[in-house]
């Protein structure tokens, strides 16, 4: 595992809201995270792009919790990750900071450089999608995430 692989940014859509005051409460809530550098909110589409401070450990669960604290949920969550060395998708996991990403598709595909992963675990997709997926039947430890590339 390369140690200088890092999460460069995440991009998510919040659900359950249609007002700018609600969107602002998510915005303000995210700002309290110490590893967050910059937040770009698209008020019209309820999407947020979050970039992170160099060398910081990005805690995906804390991002999710901040959205929920503001009173809303995440409907779609993607992260851009820079991989400094070749990694294999499939059974292979990517370790990044204290998080472990389990890639559920793209077996035997070699990954390098910037990749975009979509999170599939509870709270990172709509509850409808989560219930319909096979992820809901497998157990996930804290800090472990199922992702699709």
């Amino acid at each position: 595992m390369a140690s200088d692989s890092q999460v460069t940014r995440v991009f998510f859509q919040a659900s359950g809201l249609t007002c700018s005051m609600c969107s602002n409460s998510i915005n303000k809530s995210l700002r309290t995270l110490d590893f967050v550098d910059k937040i770009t909110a698209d008020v019209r589409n309820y999407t947020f792009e979050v970039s992170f401070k160099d060398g910081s450990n990005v805690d995906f669960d804390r991002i999710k919790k901040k959205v929920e604290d503001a009173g809303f949920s995440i409907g779609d969550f993607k992260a851009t990750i820079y991989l400094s060395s070749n990694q294999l998708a499939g059974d292979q996991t990517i370790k990044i900071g204290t998080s472990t990403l389990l890639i559920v598709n793209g077996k035997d595909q070699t990954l390098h450089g910037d990749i975009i992963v979509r999170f599939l675990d509870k709270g990172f997709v709509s509850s409808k999608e989560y219930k319909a997926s096979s992820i809901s039947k497998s157990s996930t430890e804290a800090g472990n995430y199922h992702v699709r590339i």
Partner: protein
Amino acid sequence: MKLQLLTIYLLLSLSTWSQELFAVTEPASNRPAGSIGFRVDNSVMDELGTYTINYHLIPEIMLGLSKKLMVSGNVFFSNRSDVLKIEGGSIYAKYRFLSNDMLQKHLRMAVFGRISYNNSDVHQEEIAMYGHNTGVEVGVVATQLLRKVAVSSSVSYVKATDNGNNNKFLYGLDNSKALNYTFSIGKLMLPKEYKNYRQTNVNLMLEFLSQMNMGSGNYYVDIAPTVQMIFNSQSRVDVGYRKELHSTLLRTAPNGVFVRLEYTLFNAFKPLSR
């Protein structure tokens, strides 16, 4: 009644966006966790059969304790005894137990309760925990945001006891309990398209408020249209008018104008984790 149904139909069919920050009722959605809200309610009510104006001033502090639980406390002032003086206060709590979020829509449900104290004289059969009676209120509220419109409805039970200062509840034990029903609908008028947090939002609300006394069976139905402005996605001004449509209950001053000012301080304290 036909006119009301028509108004609801028009609001439902015209709207493109919506808001649920209703002026008279509370939605099932909660305040952001860790936020403090400051609110000042002013109402100027016309006392029936007199030239007297009743002014009620209610400052309130609201805390988002967690994503599901909020509490608030307020103080009641009024000039019903000729000078503006403090008459009591209440504590309110709301717990959101259902939240089904989808893109640009949600269904939420919450239970709420209020404990009120008031030391003014009891002067009407209507039971009001927001500035008139001592007692309790418990209820349930459901709010549906349907991309284009927010609709909210609540049912609550109120029980009045004697007011403070030896002011008895005058209408008998049997008539000290009532059911409140509310139906609210809200629509965003401006901006046509969201671009940033500094745009002023203008919302129109229409609320129907009703109470039925469980003893006498007497009831009222009020309508309350409100114009609401939200500035900088942080502060809010509501200007509304409450009007009695029909009543068989004895009420002192059902009609009047209200102005609510509100400011939210985000991330003011560390919220509870659940």
